[in-house]
Structure formats: structure tokens, C-alpha cells
């Protein structure tokens, strides 16, 4: 092990910022992070062992005890559930003779849940040793079980098990006309960088991650900082359940995304860029590296780009943490730390990566910026609404006949989208993922726009066979699992929300419980440190607002009921006392 760790550290130039990369390789080799590896690594990277431990314990893809040689994770997104994930999981556990969350006795295979893996248009999905598996069904599970039992290396598994399709159904302004490699940069240089920034300003482009900050303004602020060491970061930590448009952009349009980053670098004066790619998209890495190599060969990346610019891009992988989609958490992660959102101010544009001015933008933002540099600001601003210019690329999934990628001008009605994707008998749509809004079928005339329904791209359709409470339940559990735990309202609040909603869903709620739930929601929303906590209550709040009777109907007609099953709690005592008579049982309430 010593030699392996030594080589690994050397390969990463002994940089602590590469800690996640290093730990990914250790996990991949040993299927956990051995304590000895931490002891060897800490002095090589000149960091404390506690920093390594805190990173290992933070990211879902690192474990401190051995997992199977085949680490099987199944995506737990609501869309996977809708495609039959729950019975499938039981089938897998049975077929492979491994418990959910456990490792099989022979150490060959382990099984667990993972947050949405970004394959909602081709689920149920999963990961095996980090590699995406799509379209899982019993026959495919049978085949996978066989491959695992025979210890066939992943490289020899059938390629179709790992096949990830783009599923682009409706290209719009951006997707229907790509740019020639280098064209955006050449035009920007010819026009002048200042004038190009003006074009981006003119285009009205706002951040596509969902928050919608004006892109030109962000770039301008960063370029005005006194510190001249600056960075460009592309946020490809596409973790919002139901979103997969960045996966497609990076799979098929990576040149244009990298060109957008390079354009940003020219404008703000950065020499180094990072693509922070969610760990779930490991399957894209080789392809992206070859695109970067191609760009270096074309003179569009590296030293002396178009005789004007030095800039290069490094790909960094995450390791299973939704919170790293938050820009300051992402920066912490890039620095080799747990993804805990920073206090703001200072904002990343003035103090970002390594404390230096940093622009962090979404994949789609860079993709659009490159097109704007070619076609001009007016071209982009000619579509959309007054406050939301241009188009939005949606990842549509759930109950529709054509789940995939759709691009629409802002201002498009939800009904139009539903018609296009083949949705019928619709109960409602989750717009913007769990952190967004649930809208009912009374609101389909509402529009996609920052001023109405903002979305980072997630669009999940539910038909009338679905249960609202199941949806809220799945999302609420997701947030409790993904809370970083930094601040009290989110750390404790998301777990309390989970407990309180479970109590109601499981039928133990009584008169005051919906009121208590709503009060808790407001507390978590108002006081949490970052966007995760501030939106964690949205699944409950937006459904409670629309379907209060549904929540009320779950309640019992008594004034108070304990949040747990009294009789079940006595089970251990009964076993110990070897009793099972009537006197050893308790009714849940006096009423019953």
C-alpha cells in the first residue's frame, strides 16, 4: 500500500487540493479508504489526518469500511421509483444475496441506494464501481448477477449495460445550431473582449443553474478585482434530482462548453479553469479529456491560444454530494475539503478558489455564452421574455412518452411542454427539482421564466396514478440525506422534517401535526445558511399549499399521538421477558 499511496501522491504533485481525486483512486482500488492509507497520505500532502477523515466521512462515494469488489449503488430518485425501483431493489438484493446497505459475506458485492444519478430518462439507473448503469430490469439484473458471481471485469461487461443516450427531442435556438470550434474565441478577439462582454450583457444571459444572476455582471465584477490570479469554474455537479441536461451538453457539445469557459477566461483574465464534474458522470471523463486534448492540438487551449491567451482546463470529479452544486461548497470541494458552503460576503467573484477571484457558472451558461459571442447579444435576446432572455434547456422525465432534452424560449407555457413530451392525465409537475416548485394541473398556463417558474432544468411529470405524499416523502428524505450539517436549522431541521412527514404519512399524525410541520418548514426555509436548507421545505410547502386536504386526511381524529409505535417499542422487552400475553402489549392511544 505504501508504494501505491506514494505513487498516487506523486502523480498528484503532492497537492492537497487533489484530495478527492486521490481518495477516489484509493476507494476504487480497496473499495474503502483504509485508516493506514490516511496515515500515509497525510504527511505526503502536508495536511492533518482529520482533514482527510472529514472528507472521507462527508462524501457518499467514500467509505471507511470495506464495500464489495463490485460496489453496486441504485439511484433513489423519485423518477427511478416511478420506473419500478423499489421492487427492482428487492429483486437485486434477493438475486445477489446481499442486504440493502450491506456487503455479501464473500466480500464480492455490496448494495446500497444513492441520490439521483442523472439518468432519469433511462432509469431505473445505478452505478457499479462508479460507472453508470441504465435501464435496469430483472433480465439485466440476472445478467449482472452472473457477471459479478463469475468476477468478470467491468471492461468485459456488455457495452449496452453502460449505454447512455442523449434523447434530444426538441432542439431550439442553441441546440439546433452549434458553433465551429474556435469561432467564438476568434470573433471575440476580432470584436474586442470589452465589446464581447457587452454583447453578453446585451443578450440578457442569466445563470442557468437556477439562481439567474446576470452572467455579464458576474464576469465584469471578477475582471475588476485587484487580484490578478483568477479562475474559471464550470459547475457540472448536476445533482438536482430530475436534471440531466448538462450530461447531454458535455456528452455531445463539450467543445462549445469549453469554448465558453475559454471566452470567460479571456474576458476576466484567468489562466486556469476547472470543470467540476459530479462523480456520477465518471463515464464522461475519457471523452471530455480527449476533447480537451483536441482543443490543445487546435491551439484553442493551453499556451498561446490564438496568439493572445494562456488558459487550460482541468477536470475534477466530485464524490457524491448534492451540496457541491452550491458554488462556494463546490469551491471548497475543489480545494480538497468537505463541501460546506462558505459565509458570504465575500462572494466567489472576489474570493473564490484559493481565495482568488473566481467565476463559477453552470455548463449551460458557458454553452450559451459561446453562442452569443458568435451570434451576438440581440440574436439571443430576441427570444424569451423581458426578464428572461433566450432559451432554457429542460431535462424532462417522469410520466411522459418521450423523456429527454427539450429546449424552449423562456415564456413557454407548461401546457406546451407537456403536449410536446407526450404527457397525459397529468396530476402535476415538479419544476426545478425537489428544491423547486410543485404545480398542480390547474396551473399549466404558467410560464417557464425566472419571474414565474424558474428552473435549473429539472421537469418531472406526474400522472394521476401518483401519490403526492410519496413525492414529498422522497424529496424530504433526499434533503435530510444531503444536508451538509453546517448550520443548525438545516442539519437538525431537515431531519425533523423527515420525522414529522413520516409520522403523518405513516398514519401516526394527529390534529396539530400538520400545523407543526408547516411551522418547521418556515423555520428551516428562513434561517438556513444556504440554498439547500432554504429550499429543503419546498416539497412540503408547495404540496401542502395545493393539497391541504390530502395532508389533513392522513391525520387521526385525536388531539395527540406519539410519533412512534408504542407497542412495537416494547418488542425488545417482550423478548427479554419471554412474554407475549395481553399485559405485555400497549394500545397506541386510549381511544383505540
Amino acid at each position, binding site marked *: 500500500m505504501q508504494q501505491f499511496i506514494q505513487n498516487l501522491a506523486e502523480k498528484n504533485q503532492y497537492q492537497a487540493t487533489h484530495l478527492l481525486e486521490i481518495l477516489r483512486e484509493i476507494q476504487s482500488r480497496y473499495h474503502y479508504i483504509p485508516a493506514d492509507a490516511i496515515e500515509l497520505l497525510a504527511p505526503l500532502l502536508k495536511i492533518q489526518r482529520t482533514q482527510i477523515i472529514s472528507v472521507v466521512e462527508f462524501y457518499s462515494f467514500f467509505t471507511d469500511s470495506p464495500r464489495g469488489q463490485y460496489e453496486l449503488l441504485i439511484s433513489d430518485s423519485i423518477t427511478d421509483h416511478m420506473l419500478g425501483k423499489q421492487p427492482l431493489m428487492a429483486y437485486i438484493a434477493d438475486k445477489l444475496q446481499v442486504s440493502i446497505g450491506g456487503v455479501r459475506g464473500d466480500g464480492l458485492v455490496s448494495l446500497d441506494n444513492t441520490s439521483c444519478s442523472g439518468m432519469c430518462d433511462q432509469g431505473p439507473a445505478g452505478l457499479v464501481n462508479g460507472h453508470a448503469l441504465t435501464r435496469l430490469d430483472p433480465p439485466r439484473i440476472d445478467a449482472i448477477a452472473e457477471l459479478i458471481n463469475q468476477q468478470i471485469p467491468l471492461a468485459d461487461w456488455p457495452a449496452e449495460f453502460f449505454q447512455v443516450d442523449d434523447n434530444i427531442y426538441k432542439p431550439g435556438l442553441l441546440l439546433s445550431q452549434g458553433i465551429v470550434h474556435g469561432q467564438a474565441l476568434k470573433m471575440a478577439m476580432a470584436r474586442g473582449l470589452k465589446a464581447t462582454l457587452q454583447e453578453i450583457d446585451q443578450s440578457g444571459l442569466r445563470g442557468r443553474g437556477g439562481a439567474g444572476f446576470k452572467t455579464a455582471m458576474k464576469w465584469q465584477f471578477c475582471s475588476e478585482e485587484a487580484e490578478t490570479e483568477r479562475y474559471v469554474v464550470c459547475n457540472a455537479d448536476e445533482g438536482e434530482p430530475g436534471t440531466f441536461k448538462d450530461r447531454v451538453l458535455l456528452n455531445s457539445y463539450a467543445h462549445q462548453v469549453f469554448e465558453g469557459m475559454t471566452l470567460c477566461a479571456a474576458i476576466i483574465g484567468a489562466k486556469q479553469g476547472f470543470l467540476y464534474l459530479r462523480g456520477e458522470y465518471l463515464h464522461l471523463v475519457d471523452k471530455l479529456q480527449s476533447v480537451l486534448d483536441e482543443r490543445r492540438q487546435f491551439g484553442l487551449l493551453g499556451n498561446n491560444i490564438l496568439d493572445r491567451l494562456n488558459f487550460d482546463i482541468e477536470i475534477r470529479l466530485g464524490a457524491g454530494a448534492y451540496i457541491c452544486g452550491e458554488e462556494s461548497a463546490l469551491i471548497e470541494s475543489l480545494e480538497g475539503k468537505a463541501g460546506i458552503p462558505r459565509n458570504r460576503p465575500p462572494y466567489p467573484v472576489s474570493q473564490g478558489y484559493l481565495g482568488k477571484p473566481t467565476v463559477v457558472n453552470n455548463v449551460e451558461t458557458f454553452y450559451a455564452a459561446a453562442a452569443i459571442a458568435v451570434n451576438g447579444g440581440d440574436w439571443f435576446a430576441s427570444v424569451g421574455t423581458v426578464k428572461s432572455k433566450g432559451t432554457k434547456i429542460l431535462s424532462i422525465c417522469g410520466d411522459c412518452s418521450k423523456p429527454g432534452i427539450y429546449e424552449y424560449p423562456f415564456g413557454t407555457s407548461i401546457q406546451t411542454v407537456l403536449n410536446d413530451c407526450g404527457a397525459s392525465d397529468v396530476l402535476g409537475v415538479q419544476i426545478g427539482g425537489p428544491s423547486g416548485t410543485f404545480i398542480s394541473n390547474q396551473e399549466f398556463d404558467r410560464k417557464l421564466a425566472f419571474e414565474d417558474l424558474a428552473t435549473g432544468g429539472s421537469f418531472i411529470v406526474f400522472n394521476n396514478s401518483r401519490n403526492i405524499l410519496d413525492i414529498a416523502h422522497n424529496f424530504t428524505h433526499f434533503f435530510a440525506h444531503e*444536508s451538509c450539517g453546517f448550520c443548525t436549522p438545516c442539519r437538525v431541521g431537515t431531519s*425533523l422534517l423527515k420525522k414529522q412527514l413520516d409520522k403523518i404519512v405513516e398514519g401516526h399524525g394527529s390534529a396539530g401535526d400538520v400545523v407543526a410541520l408547516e411551522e418547521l418548514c418556515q423555520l428551516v426555509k428562513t434561517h438556513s445558511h444556504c440554498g439547500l436548507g432554504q429550499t429543503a421545505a419546498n416539497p412540503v410547502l408547495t404540496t401542502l399549499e395545493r393539497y391541504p386536504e390530502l395532508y389533513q386526511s392522513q391525520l387521526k381524529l385525536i388531539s395527540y399521538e406519539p410519533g412512534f409505535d408504542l407497542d412495537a417499542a416494547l418488542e425488545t422487552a417482550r423478548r427479554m421477558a419471554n412474554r407475549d400475553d395481553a399485559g405485555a402489549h400497549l394500545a397506541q392511544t386510549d381511544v383505540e
Partner: protein
Amino acid sequence: MIMTKTITIDGNTIPFEDGQTIMEAATAAGVYIPHLCHNPEYTPHGSCKLCTIRVNGRVCSACTFPAAEGQDVLNNTKDLNDDRQKITQMLFVEGNHFCPSCEKTGNCQLQAVAYYLNMFDDHFPLFYPNRNMDASHPDVLIDHNRCIFCTLCVRASQQKDGKDVFAISGRGINKHLIVNAQSGLLKDTDLEASDQSAHICPTGAILIKRTGYTVPIGERIYDHKQIDEVALAESGSRPDSALPPSMAVAKEIDHG
């Protein structure tokens, strides 16, 4: 004439200097803003969220948010104090805090802030987490049941003691305090009982052994003073003493 920059807190005009946070400006002006993870001697952390205030309507943490000309701050309002009480209740239910049997009772800031905010019950269901104790060190005890993840011990160890004894690890509700030793035990770290980090804990999570009852219950800091009075007195002109902060304050109050 030098123009003094000011903000208002609950309608009162308060001066501030550039670079000060709202917490610092408030404290200097004798205005108490409830807090637990904040300690004026260390880099602010902003995690407990007890110092939540409204700045021109927007919710902010007073300990990290910079004061700026023209800010209209709400602090001591019923709405904010009600929410602060609930945040304190969250801290109580998340761990195992049994004040009557805790040797920190009366000197505990968590308990004192709960009294200040009129907290009379837990409100939320208790988590009853299964947490361990680390009694391995000859002079210092960690009771993880009482840790609120304020990171004051982490910061004190780094910023005052020049060591790196403590860290917070884990994610979400599984967050926990760890110590810097291969064995994971406090006895194998370079912590000494005289370190600031061994004395900074606002709750009873880090305790000096054999000193728990040198000051009898009933004669402890918060048995006589509300936490706002103590915090403001402490911020006054307390010398950088090697004594535990709680003792230093107690002394000042005794002689003051």
C-alpha cells in the same frame, strides 16, 4: 470633524468601524445578540444561527455579516426570539442534554441562552442519538452527547494553541467531533489541559477532569446573571488570561 458611520439596531443608532461585523458593532455598543458558535477572540463561523437578525428585511448572521452604512437591523424582536428559541430547541433535541446531571450546569452557554430565550420545553421530538464519551485523556474529557458542532475547540486549537487537535467530521445529522490521533482517542493527541481549546466549549462536551464541582451549583456564572449581561461584561476589558474563560468571567463578576 470625523464622520462616524452608523447602523440602527431596533431603532437605536449604533456606530461602527469599517471591517466590523454587525455582532462586533452591537457588542461594542452594549447590544446583546444571542450566539453560541461566536466568540469575539476567534474567526466567526456562522453555523449555530442563533445570531440571526434581519438587515433591511433580509435574514443574516450577525457574527459574519459586515456592518455597512444605513443598515436597519432588527434584533430583539418577538419573531426573531421565537425562532431563536426553536433553533436552541433543535440543538437540545439533536444531542443528549440532561442539565440536572451535567457538571457544566450553571456554567453552560447552551443552557443559559435557553433561559434567556424563555425555553421551557424541547418542543421537538428528541433524537436520543447514540454517542460515545472519550475519557482516555488524563485531564480532559469529551462527552460527545453534548457537542453542538460550534467548532470553537477546533478554532481555539488552531488559532490560539497552534495545534490541530479537533475537527468536525461527517455529514448532516451524522456530524461529529473527531480528534487528531491515529487511535481516534484524545489521550493520543498533543492536547494539554492548559490549552485554550480544552476550556472554550460553550456546553459540557469538553470538560477538565476533577474540576467539575469546585464551584458549587448555585454559585455558578449563569445562576446569578443572564447570559446577555455576562457576554457584554466579558467583551468589555477582559485580559487575555490563561484561566478558563468561564472562571475569568466569574472572577470579574465577583470583583466587579
